[in-house]
């Protein structure tokens, strides 16, 4: 029966349309210019330099950008690619290769209770993304419960509760200042018993990845999940703001070390930012993007589709 929850072609098209739409708002942006870059007749040294700059502008990072241009250049030479059109196709291909084809998210696998832990730096969009996930999986027939394990930030619990109401899912919370581990413990028990939930999504406090004690706290929350539910958390998702620059790599590295993040939710793709840093994160750390956020409403959300992402990037 869980096959039912796979994306239908219609859903797929809808997701793609959403990403395209949000990225096309910024057509005048630089990735839009990549497309036109290869519309000129001749590919010269300047073209390559410009390509590198355009990639850097999209936050790919200097290393990923230079490596990509190098690869593309040698490929163009080796395969004797002449037409600008074909160079563009090769570029698309190289960009796609950087984004692994992640296996379908673990969330859909059949099990009694699936636990998803949401982590990230302050203000990246965790709580909003949780609302989006809740809506998304509820619409796919899951019984969703949210755990308010951000007991630190002022009014964080209220924020999650409002989202719970809006999306029609239960929120398990304690008082501000409560131990996040205890909240999670409670939430798991409640999900298993009274609420009969099959998907528990845990909101955690925003924390800078360099803060030792806060990262330790997160490890504890992770451990509580693992102790209470077999193989939990089944997904640990890092919420990353697309406007983030090179620091995103450090974020991903630290969160991976602490709680073995299994994927990324890339938020704020409706901004002018391109989120190019995810190429570097994939390449260096092997952490794939799972979902994208494209606005402040619960429906501004889609499963990540590498092709749609790259195409939107290259759209002229």
């Amino acid at each position, binding site marked *: 029966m869980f096959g039912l929850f796979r994306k239908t072609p219609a859903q797929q098209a809808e997701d793609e349309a959403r990403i395209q739409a949000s990225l096309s*708002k*910024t057509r005048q942006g630089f990735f839009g210019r990549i497309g036109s870059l290869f519309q000129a007749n001749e590919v010269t040294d300047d073209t390559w330099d410009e390509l590198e*700059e355009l990639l*850097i*502008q*999209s*936050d790919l*990072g*200097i290393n990923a950008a230079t490596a990509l241009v190098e690869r593309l250049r040698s490929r163009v030479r080796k395969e004797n690619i002449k037409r600008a059109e074909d160079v563009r196709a090769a570029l698309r291909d190289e960009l796609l290769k950087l984004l692994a084809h992640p296996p379908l998210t673990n969330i859909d696998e059949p099990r009694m209770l699936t636990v998803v832990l949401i982590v990230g*730096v*302050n*203000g*990246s*969009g965790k709580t909003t993304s949780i609302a989006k996930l809740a809506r998304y999986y509820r619409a796919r027939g899951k019984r969703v419960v949210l755990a308010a394990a951000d007991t*630190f*930030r*002022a*009014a*964080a619990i*209220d*924020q999650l509760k*409002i*989202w719970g109401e*809006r999306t029609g899912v239960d929120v398990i919370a304690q008082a501000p200042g409560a131990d996040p581990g205890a909240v999670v413990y409670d939430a798991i028990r409640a999900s298993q018993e009274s609420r009969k939930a099959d998907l528990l999504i845990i909101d955690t406090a925003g924390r*800078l*990845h*360099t*803060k*030792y004690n806060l990262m*330790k706290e997160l490890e504890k929350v992770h451990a509580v999940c693992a102790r209470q539910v077999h193989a939990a958390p089944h997904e640990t998702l890092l919420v990353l*703001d697309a*406007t*983030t*620059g*090179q*620091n*995103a790599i*450090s*974020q991903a590295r*630290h969160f991976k070390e602490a709680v073995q993040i299994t994927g990324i939710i890339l938020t*704020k793709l*409706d*901004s*002018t*930012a*391109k989120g190019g*840093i995810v190429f570097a994160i994939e390449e260096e750390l092997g952490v794939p993007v799972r979902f994208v956020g494209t606005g*402040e409403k619960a429906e501004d959300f889609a499963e990540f589709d590498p092709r749609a992402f790259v195409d939107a990037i290259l759209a002229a």
Partner: protein
Amino acid sequence: MFESLQTKLNAVFDKLAARGRLTEQDVDVALREVRLALLEADVNFRVVKQLVARVRERAIGAEVMQSLTPAQQVVKIVHSELLQTLGEPARLDLSGPSPHVVMLVGLQGSGKTTTAAKLALSLRKNQNKRALLVAADTYRPAAVTQLEVLGKQIDTPVHSEGTKVPPPEIVRHALQRGREGAFDVIILDTAGRLQISEEMMRELEQIKALAKPQEILLVADAMTGQEAVNVAKGFHERVNVTGLILTKVDGDARGGAAISMREVTGVPIKYLATGEKLDGLEPFHPDRLATRILGMGDMLTLIERAGETVDKADAERMSRKLVKGEFNLEDFLGQLQQIKKMGPLTQLLDMIPGMGRMAQDLAPDVTDKQFRQIEAIINSMTPQERRDPKLLNGSRKRRVAKGSGSSVMEVNDLLNQFRQMQRMMKQMSSGGRGMRGILDMFR
């Protein structure tokens, strides 16, 4: 491991120097490293281009090419260009009659609400000003409650009208209340918005028109990437910001976005925001940010921190001992205890040029455990042994190990480390290079 620009340039010039005189092309090779470093720090690539062009102009001059230390010269030039771009730190303009209106604007999640509370607290603590906080973000769920909770924490009134009243209306009422209540400053916490959102930017213009803020501060995340330029430009074009606040500076982002935003707006950086505690608002020091952008750590903060905790007379006594090579295990223990007072070791290492990486690999509880073990071992020694570790023969070591709950191997490790340290210190002090010497070690 040590990746500061200085290190990279040293490597470049060492290679070149082997060939003799430096040429213009050589300088260009070095400038490529400069470009890389700036891009890695998230400085916008257009801004990097301009910066590098300026650096080149100066570097091609006699300054670098005839210098015996070309790497240092280049770093000096880059540093000074960065300083130029970052500009002088500026204070909040609170001239004229009160209440003064300060409006905070920025993208979603950049830290406006927390910063509003920090600003209110800082104004009261440092300038004895009474602030009224205004909850004008009616969009994000519980944003109003968040500001109310923060207001309570710092005992500062918050003007809020729930989420049904349009923000300009709320602001209008707040201005009235600010005047009547004889507040000095009215701080408007506006909703986060994208600079390309026409509707939301129009709202901001409306609020500006009726509140006539004396300061409009763009609150931006220190982790922002290349887009910082578009964000700053977008906000500046619509509402003419008067200053910048860089938030989340307590992380490990290099903060090159600050350079980009300065360059496109020309307005000063007014504060750096650190941490989630409400006293985390610092005046902006261009020199520190410049060294940070260049990946040279934050020595100044470290030194300042040391100054706060280390007793001066004690430090002088210690350095005399060091010079004479009289530094013993007792002193070592004392030093460790001093360091412990300065904060978690990893945090300290983060501030030292090139050591950030190493800090990432260290866990403070491990370090703290090691600290405790070292203390236990040294405490199990007799005073004579502490002063003269050479006395420690096999049986004495066994006794110390037993007394401190460790193994003989661990005692040996400590003694080895101590000897190494002694050697290092002697070298440093005999060179008479003091702080410079320490800095060089980290290159």
